[in-house]
């Protein structure tokens, strides 16, 4: 039981830090609350979809920004989509970069867009690592016979 307690505390601490540091917002907690016996992997599945989305959209943006004549509307469309998904999963930092990114698209500022692209790529990989750590902790708790504590 001690191992379980330790792991549970680790999980809660880690989760709290992700929120504190702005990686996740309340929407992520909402998703965790939706997870139940009927869909025990719901959050992991949504996260996977989100990361697939990120990769696809980031590639689209990169390609569009590489063009001689950049089609900023196209870039913006991808950023808009990414902003939407990040908002839906509670990926706050990614979402915030998207907001800035859209302004640069509107201003047709290629340099600004490229900087944002770099930032969004960075935030996405940071988040991916952190969520993988979080999910791993969950698995460890379950493997040790415990239950994952609910976040409030």
């Amino acid at each position, binding site marked *: 039981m001690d191992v379980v307690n330790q792991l549970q505390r680790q999980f809660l601490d880690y989760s709290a830090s992700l929120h504190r540091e702005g990686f996740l917002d309340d*929407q992520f907690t*909402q*998703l965790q*609350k*939706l997870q*139940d016996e*009927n*869909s025990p992997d*719901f959050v992991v*599945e*949504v996260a996977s*979809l*989100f990361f*697939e*989305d990120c990769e696809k959209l980031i590639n689209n943006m990169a390609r569009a920004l590489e063009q001689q004549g950049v089609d900023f*509307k196209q870039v*913006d*469309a991808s950023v*808009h*989509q990414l*902003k*939407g*998904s990040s*908002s*839906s*999963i*509670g990926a706050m930092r990614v*979402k*915030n970069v998207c*907001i800035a990114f*859209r302004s640069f*698209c*509107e201003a047709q500022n290629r340099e600004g867009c490229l900087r944002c692209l770099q930032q969004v790529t960075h935030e996405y990989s940071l988040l991916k690592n952190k969520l993988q750590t979080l999910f791993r902790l969950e698995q460890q708790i379950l493997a040790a016979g415990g239950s994952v504590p609910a976040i409030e």
Partner: protein
Amino acid sequence: MEAAAAADVLPSGSSQELHVLAVDDSYVDRKVIEKLLKISSCKVTAVESGARALQFLGLDGEKGSLGFDGLKVNLIMTDYSMPGMTGYELLKKIKRSSAFREIPVVIMSSENILTRIDSCLEEGAEEFLVKPVKLSDVRRLMKDCVMRGETEGNNAGRRVDKRKFEDDNHTSSLSSSSSLTPSPPSTTAPFGGDVATSELVSSSPPHSSKRAKLHDGD
């Protein structure tokens, strides 16, 4: 957390689940809305585009109008910004069809733009939800839809109510999202972006719809 069962508010003796058609081009959003609806005891069909939605309803010109498995659709929830056919265009098509105009349509959008909300409500949308959609939004919709089903259908009257009255406290009417003070002129950015949102600081109507909520950074 207790499941907000649509079944809880259905008249006793009824074992019917609401069948919701969800339309969204985003995988993530489809998955989330599907879960929200399932947890609320609804049957869900989630499709990725307006075209697919029309196909499912049988409005694409093909024969057969009850959907692939013959299930009646009780509610349509659609994203606004989708490539190809927007949620607004889908809404119009549905409201202009004699077979399906009775089905309530709810628009979901990540952008809180008054002119957009107005046009959707004007075309007959029941509600305009700002994303991300929460469980409390879905619960409220379930209640409104079911109560709506119990009263005599009187679409024409409801449409007038939506646009004119601000102090409407009827829980059965769905005019909460439309009780607006006159909207300020919205400046549309080149890509119809978030510019207008910063002007939206309306006081929330008592039945506060998501529309009135300020989003950080938006």
